[in-house]
Every structure is written in structure tokens, then in C-alpha cells.
């Protein structure tokens, strides 16, 4: 399966990072480029629970494929959301269920952000994503 263009870009940028500091800077940059959500979209219904930071996630079907939008009040989490969306946006429902997101974060050198003891909420975001495509699919 060919990677979406944004994902190619993320992979190139993150794999070129020699250490945590550069990776953190990159996450902050990616987070800054994440399109904002409107105030109305940052509502309780779109809120992802299980995160200590506030996170909102919206899913929209565009023909056969899915488009997600997300944001958070925490800046590094915003970056993690950006690289997540880069990987999943534009995929079809069938592709979405088969994409290995753990592997994706590992490739970016961000595997530890997904471990169960982390309360950053990335796990909860993935779970919510699965729920959204089930109910709206």
C-alpha cells in the first residue's frame, strides 16, 4: 500500500532526526501546522475521553475515503495528532482497519508515545477513531 503524500513527508522528516530534541522540535512544528477547529467543533460530543489533555476528533466520510480532523490544547500532542492524521487521512474504511498505527509511530521514532502507561491520550484517540468509522461507516 502506497503511503499518502503527507505520510511520506512525515517519515522523511522524522527518520532524519538524530535525537529526542530534534524530534520534539519537529512535533511542535507539525502541531503548529495542524488546522485549527472552530469553537463549536471543540464541543463535548467531539471530545476524546481518557486523555488528561483536551482532545477533539471529528470524522467525515468523503466518498469512499475518510477525513479526520483533530486538535488538542497540548502542543506536543497536537504534533502527534498531525502525524497520525498524515497517515490515515484519505484512506478507505477497509484500508483504515488494516493500517498498523503502532508500526507507523515506531517508524517515526515515536513508539513510546503509544505505550499503555502513557496518559497522553494517543491510545484513546485511536480507539475513538475506530468507533467513529464503525458508527458512521
Amino acid at each position, binding site marked *: 500500500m502506497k503511503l499518502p503524500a503527507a505520510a511520506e513527508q512525515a517519515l522523511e522528516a522524522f527518520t532524519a532526526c538524530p535525537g*529526542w530534541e530534534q524530534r*520534539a522540535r519537529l512535533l511542535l512544528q507539525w502541531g503548529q501546522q495542524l488546522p485549527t477547529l472552530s469553537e463549536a467543533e471543540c464541543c463535548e460530543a467531539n471530545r476524546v475521553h481518557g486523555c488528561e489533555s483536551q482532545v477533539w476528533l471529528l470524522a467525515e466520510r468523503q466518498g469512499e475515503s475518510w477525513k479526520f480532523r483533530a486538535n488538542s490544547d*497540548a502542543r506536543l500532542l497536537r504534533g502527534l495528532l498531525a502525524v497520525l492524521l498524515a497517515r490515515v487521512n484519505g484512506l478507505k474504511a477497509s484500508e483504515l482497519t488494516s493500517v498498523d498505527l503502532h508500526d507507523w509511530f515506531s517508524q517515526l521514532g515515536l513508539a513510546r508515545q503509544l505505550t499503555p502507561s502513557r496518559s497522553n491520550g494517543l491510545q484513546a484517540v485511536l480507539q475513538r477513531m475506530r468507533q467513529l468509522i464503525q458508527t458512521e461507516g
Partner: protein
Amino acid sequence: MSLISPWRADFPGILALAAEGQTYLDSAATAQKPQAVLDALLGYLAGGAANVHRAQHLPGERATRAFEATRDKAATWLNAASREEILFTRGSTEALNLLAYSLEHLLQPGDEIVISALEHHANLLPWQQLALRRGLKLVVLPLDAAGSIDLAHAAQLIGPRTRLLALSQLSNVLGRWQPLRELLAMARTHGALSVVDGAQGAVHGRPDMQALGCDFYVCSGHKLYGPDGVGLLYGRNQALAQLRHWQFGGEMVLDADYQSARFRPAPLGFEAGTPPVSAVIALGAALDWLSAQNQAAVTQHEATLHAELLAGLAARQGVRLLGQPQLALASFTIDGIHNADLAHLLTEQGIAVRAGHHCAMPLLKSLGLSGAIRVSLGLYNDGEDLTHFFDALDQALELLR
């Protein structure tokens, strides 16, 4: 010169973490264990495990003797009046739940249970749920700006309807000794039972039950440089006699028929089923180890570390402490910086601190915060640990600002 901990070398865990590049500053969550505790665990398990109080065979007798020796050590360590005042539980949380169930029969609708605004969920939720079950009123004592229970308010709120007062000795978020002497006196005046949550307090000063004068006191092995899965519940003799049995099963029974049974008094009547034998034995070793240390030297070391921690935080721009911590820990936020971002970058740099609500959500909400970073100290921490922490903090702030 960097502050040195003379106890550090006794703790393989802190040394192993340091060798891995991890700076452990989360001892208020759980503490590392001295070699003596590891030896006791292995000694019992490798020497032949057996159940306690049940068998007349040699391994059973040996296990029972070691297990019951911890009860003596705990009684001495807490300065209880007798060994029968010490109950083993799975931890502070279970001890508080035990009390909330075993005291339920004494409470009538409209009676009041008093706690404080800084309680850990373990000393809030069992009482909250008891209040809901029995139609009781849960009264919450407010704090002053420093983070101590406000005595003037407490004097108004603790009254003739108060049947039970349950308070933390040392807050796991605010790091302050609470004015228990005055508060327990108020409870006594009104004939209320008193429960002290010593999960944090027991670690930073030698608890003395006869001086403190509470009815019940709880603490956890794993924070006390001992094993997890075991805690202590101290109950003053007359107070223990008021408890109703709550968990039923093996070895807590005097006589059983199909339709009825009679139960043992405390302590064994409240230790149903096989207890955490290895953990209890290892807790005995932890208490031995602690008793052998110079408590004044430990207190002095911890105070020096804590002062360095506060000074370092005060020197950084935008740091806001939660309350005015006196010892053991400091919780803080930084203006304009999200806790999650800071926690992320500290973790990246091998700094093990806690971020979040610290199991005290109502307290954090009342301070208008969704979370905070907490640095907590053990006697094995040293000046170098703090240097690592502050270097990492500065690096994180540079990235985020």
C-alpha cells in the same frame, strides 16, 4: 558540593534506574526497596513457601513465625499499645475500604462524616460511597492558601453530628503536615471516631500511635520502602472492637455451620483468606531497615533536598507551586506551558516525575487545574538527581518557549 545520600547504595532499584539513565523522582507513588527487603522476599520464597496459621508442619510453622514477627515489628514501629492492634491489609486503599464497610453499622441517616478538601481518592471515595449508601452527609473541610486544613473552619464544621473524621496526615499533592493534633482533639470532643491516612506521612516521620491519639491509622508497604500488596491498619483496641466483619473466608472464622458462623476478633478476623505472606515478611525487613537508620539524619537529608528543590523551582520563571510544600514533594505548574507538554519532554530526558491529577481530582479542580507536575523525594535521592531534573526542566522550557 552536591548533596550525597548515604542510604542510596542500599537500594539496587535506584542504582539500576540511574544506570539506565532514569532519574527517579516519583517516590510518593511508590518507593524503591533496600537490599534487605529483596533478601527477605527471596529468602522466604526460595527457602520454602507455606501458608500461615493453618498447618502444624515445619514450613507452615516457620512461615507463621516470620509473618507474625512483622506484626510485632509494626506494633513497635507505630508505637501501638499491643500487637493485636495491627491488621494486615493489601494496602492503604483496602484498609480504608475495610473501615468504610466495617463501621457502616454505627452510622445512621443524617450523621456526618468529615474529610478534607485535599484527600486522595482512597480517603475520599470509600466515605463518599458510604455516605451515599447510608444517607449520611459528607462534610469537606476547606484549606487555607498554604494548603493546610483551616482550623477555624474545621472548628465550625466538626460538631455534635460528626460521627467520623477521616484525614490525611501529609498531602500527596501539597506536601504539608496537617494540623492533626488540633483536629483529632475536635473529633474527641464530639465523640467522633478518627481515621488518619498515613500513606505519605508514615514515610517521612516515625508515626507514634499513642502520641497521635487517633482511632485508626493506615499506611502502605510499597511507599515505605517495602513490598507492594501489603498495608497496615492500626486500630486502637476499643475502636477495633466496634468493627463488624467485612470479608469472609478462610482463617477468619471461629466456628462455621452451613447456615451460620462465628468469627474471630481482630486482627485475624479481618484477614480473611491467604494473606500476602511474602510481602508481610518483607515488610518486616523494611521496618527493620528503617528502624536501624538514624531518623534525625534522614529527616535532615530530606529537608535539605526539599529546600534545594524549592529553591530551584523558585529560580525558574513562571513556576507556580500548589500550596506551600513543607517536605517530601512539590507540585507545580508553569505559566503558559501545558503540563502534558512538560511531562512529555521530561520523560524524553529520563526524568521520572508524575504528571496529572495525582488521584485527587476534586482538589485539582478546586485549584482550577486539570493537572500538575509533581516531584517527590525518597531518602535515596541526592543532589545530582535534582541537577538532572533542573537541567531537563530548563531544556524542556527552552523548547516550549
